C-alpha cells in the first residue's frame, strides 16, 4: 500500500538506494580489488576529490552534445519538411533515408575524426549524424500519415501543399518529432562518448579513457555517473516537452 502511494521519483530513489547498498555489500563481502570494482563510497570520494576536473570535462562534453543535437534536430526537421513538401525530393532522398537507417553511423566516428581532427567539429558532426536520421525519419513518417478525413478536408478547401503541410501535417506530426527526439537523446550521449574515445583531448569520454589507463577505476565510474546524469537531464527535457505538447495539442 505504502509503495503504491509513493510518487515515481521517490520510488526511483528507493530502488537506487537499494542498488547502491547491494553494490557496496558485494564489494565489502567479496573483497574485490578497488581497481576492478570500487564501491559506491570510493566513487563518491573520487567524484568529490576530482570535482573541478570532472566539471570542466563535463562542460566540454555537454557543450558538444547540445551543439551536435541542435544541428541534428535542425537538419532532421528541415529534411522531413522538405521531403513532405516536394515529391521530387521524396523520389530522390527517400531511399537514402531508409538505407541510412541500416548503416551503423557510430562506425563512422573514426573516419570523421580522421577527417575533422580531434577537436570540437568532429564531435559535433558525429552527434549530428547519429541524431539526424531518427528525427528526420520519425517526423517524415508522421508528416506523410495525415488521416484521410483531414486529407479530404484539405483537398476540398483547395489548399496548396505548403499550407497543408504547415497547418495540418506539421501539428499532426509533433508526436513523430517527439519520438525522434526520444531516440536522439539516447543516441546523442553515446555519440559523445564514442567520439571522445576515438580521439579527443577533453571531455568525459576522454577522462574515462585516461582514468582507465591509470587504474583510477573510481574516477572512471564517477565520469560515467556524470554522463548518465547528463543523459537523464536530456530525457527529462524531452519528457516535459512531450507532456506539454500533448496537453497543448490535445492528442488522445
Amino acid at each position, binding site marked *: 500500500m505504502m509503495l503504491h502511494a509513493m510518487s515515481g521519483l521517490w520510488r526511483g530513489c528507493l530502488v537506487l538506494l537499494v542498488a547502491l547498498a547491494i553494490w557496496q555489500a558485494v564489494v565489502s563481502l567479496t573483497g574485490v580489488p578497488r581497481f576492478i570494482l570500487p564501491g559506491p563510497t570510493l566513487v563518491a570520494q573520487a567524484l568529490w576529490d576530482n570535482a573541478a576536473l570532472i566539471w570542466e570535462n563535463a562542460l566540454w562534453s555537454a557543450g558538444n552534445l547540445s551543439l551536435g543535437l541542435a544541428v541534428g534536430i535542425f537538419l532532421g526537421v528541415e529534411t522531413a519538411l522538405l521531403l513532405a513538401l516536394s515529391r521530387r525530393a521524396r523520389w530522390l532522398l527517400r531511399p537514402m533515408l531508409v538505407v541510412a537507417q541500416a548503416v551503423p553511423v557510430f562506425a563512422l566516428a573514426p573516419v570523421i575524426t580522421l577527417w575533422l581532427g580531434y577537436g570540437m567539429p568532429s564531435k559535433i558532426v558525429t552527434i549530428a549524424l547519429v541524431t539526424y536520421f531518427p528525427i528526420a525519419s520519425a517526423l517524415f513518417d508522421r508528416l506523410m500519415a495525415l488521416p484521410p478525413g483531414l486529407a*479530404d478536408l484539405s483537398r476540398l*478547401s*483547395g489548399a496548396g501543399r505548403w499550407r497543408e503541410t504547415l*497547418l495540418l501535417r506539421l501539428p499532426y506530426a509533433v508526436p513523430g518529432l517527439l519520438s525522434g527526439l526520444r531516440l536522439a537523446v539516447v543516441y546523442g550521449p553515446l555519440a559523445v562518448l564514442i567520439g571522445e574515445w576515438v580521439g579527443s583531448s577533453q571531455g568525459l569520454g576522454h577522462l574515462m579513457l585516461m582514468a582507465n589507463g591509470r587504474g583510477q577505476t573510481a574516477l572512471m565510474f564517477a565520469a560515467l555517473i556524470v554522463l548518465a546524469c547528463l543523459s537523464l537531464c536530456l530525457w527529462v527535457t524531452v519528457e516535459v516537452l512531450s507532456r506539454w505538447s500533448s496537453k497543448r495539442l*490535445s492528442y488522445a
Partner: protein
Amino acid sequence: MAGSLKAGDTLLIDSLDLTLPAGRWSALLGPSGVGKTSLLRLIAGLPCAAHLKGRLKAGDGAPIAPRVAMMAQDDQLLPWACALDNVTICARLRGEPAQTERAAALLARVGLGGLERRKPANLSAGQRQRVALARTLYEDRAVVLLDEPFSALDAMTRHTVQDLAAGLLAGRTVVLITHDPAEAIRLADVAWILTRAGIAPCILPPTMPPRAPEAAATISAQAALLKRMRLLAAQGAG
C-alpha cells in the same frame, strides 16, 4: 449523372441515372458496401477506389468540385485547434484571412455560443458535429455533401442536429447519404434506394421536410420504405 459505378472490375451499381435537383435535399439510401460513399467522393472530386463509367455533370455545365463542401460521419476536426479555428481552417488552408466574427456568429447559430475556445476533446459528439456544420456553413458552398453525418450520434442529439442542419442548409443542393430510412424520410425532398441493379426512387410524404417524426404520414412512409428496401435486398440476394 449517368453511367455505372465500378470498383476495379467489380460492378457496384449497374445502371445509374440520377438527376439531383438543385437547391433541394436528395437522399441516397442503401446498404453498406453498395458504393454510396464512392458516389459522393466522385461528386466531390476526391480520390476514390471506384470509378464512374459514364458522365457526371452539373446542370450549368460548370465544374462541381470547387463548389462542394462536405460533412462526414467522423467530424474531421483538428484536435489541436479550438472550435473557432476549426471553423476557419478551410479559409486558412487557402491562405485567406480568417473571418473570426463570421465564424463566431456561425458557432452561435449552431448553438455553440461561448464555446469558441473549446477544443474538440472538450466537446460532446453532438457539439463536435455542430462545429463541423458551422465549418461547412463557413465555406458557403452551393453543394453540400453529407456522408452519414448524424449516424454516430445518439437518438436525441441526432434529432436536434438534423433539425439544425435542415434549417441552416435550406436552399443549397444537399446530397445526403444514409442507411437509415427514417433519416431519409425526415430530411429529403427526393430520395433513391441504391442497389447493385440500379437505383429506385422512393415515395416520400407530400409535406415539406424536415418532417415531424411522430406524424402518421412520416411513420407510414417509413414503414413502406423499409418494406421496399427489404424486398430489393431479397431480390438482390436471389
